């Protein structure tokens, strides 16, 4: 079948099931039912603290075919996923599905477990490094299923993704399972992505390197959701967990893009009191924040909130009074962790509150401006952040599709060319985010506005900004780089890209 973006999909995919084709970003808002939870009640006197991961696995009665889940707040410093899957392999189990909110280069040992048939399925919102490359080569038995951050929460809450055992990497946990992310040597701040897992999994195991006496306050994930607690030496490597300080780019091209993006925001009319904003942690995205900060200060604008993964830079803007509050699903650096711990207006949020389309309204719906990246964007404004232009998986939506859909002005910032590759193409290799939710593309050589945004085009009529059609930008790039040859793929589907509402927006095929 062909979905609404012209992507060719099978009706049925082995290991996935019947394919619901993407029909449009806003076609699927409806009455929904949340899944019920099966749990084992705990009576007074029961002890939740176990001596090892193996004991926890046995207590949870793990079986072949189980789905186990992980969250990625420890990012490329995470030890928990590898520790748990190693134990599962030692128990001789097979056909395990790993539902990790993200997979990083540190999870390379997973590749062996995939080859040995211990792991046959993967769910992830983002994948990079050896696991992503191995999946692209087709070594996983079933296609990987790629969600958005909000879409993962939706899938868990609806029962589309049923978790048998959730493992919560816990920087601080007490003996009865109250967890927070702000204390201990592995402190990572908000635990937003782990919350749906904790609430909807059949069994929940906290893995901690900081077991503290009851009760541990503040409580982010409470004892009512946690079955067992296992203490280990270390849940992660602090160097990989938080990335020192996040820095604004010094690259003149990145700065030029950021400056144009900030000017576009100003001319859009959205930059006024109550302004809300989200940007990624990349150098160019942060530079947009820096220019926006100057404009807010100059015009004495008080914003309402900044959201998303929070960086030290956004914390600085908050501390200077430019935003009244922060919504934090994940902290990117120590400064963000510190602020999250100490400031009440620095509010944690679950991934569901952040971006789930099927709850009573996600935070993304209240965003004015979202700054996004792209590895490719096509002349229909569809964005690929899942595969590189060589077809290999190197990312995933994360919050990309959620924020694009929710925000009033979703701006993709990107260089027009990267190492000879034109970023604007006729048809992206993989669609991650549909073009109808992208409002503008800003490159160092010009800006393109989605022609559907007639209101924005009208506002910019008198603008001195370098505004072109997206086709003109594409030609500008190809004049420099030439037209790339098409990448060829095998027929085998190695990953399924689900839109946030659970429909299939695209598939990734095996690289040749």
């Amino acid at each position, binding site marked *: 079948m062909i979905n609404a973006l012209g992507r060719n999909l099978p009706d049925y995919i082995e290991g996935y099931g019947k394919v619901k084709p993407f029909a449009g970003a806003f076609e699927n808002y409806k009455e929904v039912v949340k899944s019920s939870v099966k749990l084992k009640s705990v009576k007074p006197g029961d002890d939740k603290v176990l001596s090892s991961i193996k004991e926890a696995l046995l207590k949870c009665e793990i079986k072949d075919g189980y789905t186990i889940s992980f969250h990625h707040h420890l990012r490329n410093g995470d030890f928990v996923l590898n520790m748990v899957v190693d134990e599962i392999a030692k128990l001789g189990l097979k056909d395990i599905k790993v539902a990790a909110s993200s997979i990083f280069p540190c999870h390379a040992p997973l590749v062996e477990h995939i080859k040995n048939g211990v792991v046959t399925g993967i769910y992830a919102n983002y994948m990079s490094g050896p696991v992503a490359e191995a999946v692209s080569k087709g070594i996983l038995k079933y296609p990987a299923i790629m969600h958005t951050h909000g879409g993962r929460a939706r899938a868990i809450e609806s029962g589309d993704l049923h978790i048998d055992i959730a493992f919560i990497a816990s920087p601080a946990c007490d003996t009865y399972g109250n967890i927070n992310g702000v204390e201990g040597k592995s402190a990572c701040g908000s635990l937003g992505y782990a919350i749906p897992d904790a609430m909807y999994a059949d069994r929940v195991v906290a893995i901690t390197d900081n077991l503290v006496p009851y009760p541990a306050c503040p409580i982010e994930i409470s004892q009512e959701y946690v079955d067992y607690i296992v203490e280990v030496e270390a849940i992660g490597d602090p160097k990989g967990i938080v990335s020192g300080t996040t820095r604004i780019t010094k690259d003149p091209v990145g700065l030029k893009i950021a400056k144009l993006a900030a000017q576009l925001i100003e001319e859009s009319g959205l930059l006024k009191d109550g302004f809300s904003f989200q940007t990624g942690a990349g150098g160019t995205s942060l530079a947009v924040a820096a220019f926006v900060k100057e404009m807010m200060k100059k015009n004495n604008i008080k914003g309402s909130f900044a959201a998303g993964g929070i960086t030290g830079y956004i914390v600085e803007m908050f501390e200077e009074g430019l935003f009244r509050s922060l919504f934090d699903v994940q902290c990117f650096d120590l400064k963000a962790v510190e602020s999250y711990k100490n400031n009440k207006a620095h509010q944690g949020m679950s991934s569901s509150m952040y971006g789930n389309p099927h709850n009573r309204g996600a935070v993304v719906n209240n965003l004015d401006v979202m700054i996004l990246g792209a590895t490719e964007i096509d002349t229909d404004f569809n964005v690929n952040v899942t595969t590189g*232009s060589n077809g290999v998986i190197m990312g995933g939506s994360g919050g990309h599709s959620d924020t694009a859909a929710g925000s009033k002005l979703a701006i993709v910032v990107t260089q027009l060319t990267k190492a*000879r590759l034109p970023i604007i193409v006729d048809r992206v290799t993989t669609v991650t985010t549909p073009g109808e939710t992208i409002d503008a593309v800003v490159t160092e050589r010009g800006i393109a506005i989605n022609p559907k945004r007639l209101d924005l085009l009208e506002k910019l009529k008198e603008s001195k900004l370098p505004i072109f059609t997206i086709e003109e930008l594409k030609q500008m790039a190809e004049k420099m*780089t030439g037209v790339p040859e098409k990448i060829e793929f095998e027929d085998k589907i190695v990953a399924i890209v689900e839109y946030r509402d659970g429909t299939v927006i695209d598939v990734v095929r095996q690289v040749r």
Partner: protein
Amino acid sequence: MKIVRPAKAGTMESNDIYIMIYPNENGNEIQLDSIVLKQFGKAIERVIMDTLNELEVDNALVVAKDRGALDYTIRARMETAIKRASE
């Protein structure tokens, strides 16, 4: 031009290409490694071959490591390498 000694030009920096050129026995030969091999491998080889022909080089082995260079850079680096390898 006649290639009389090995020579090199360019760097391994992003957007550059590192060219090594050697005297060869039977005609021109190219060994290309590129970060955009799938998308632009043929185009890069064509530019290298064109530069060899323009400068009338008949017997050269060109070993190129491309880091995303545009055509103007490939032509410039080839020209430099050839001139360094001849005369």
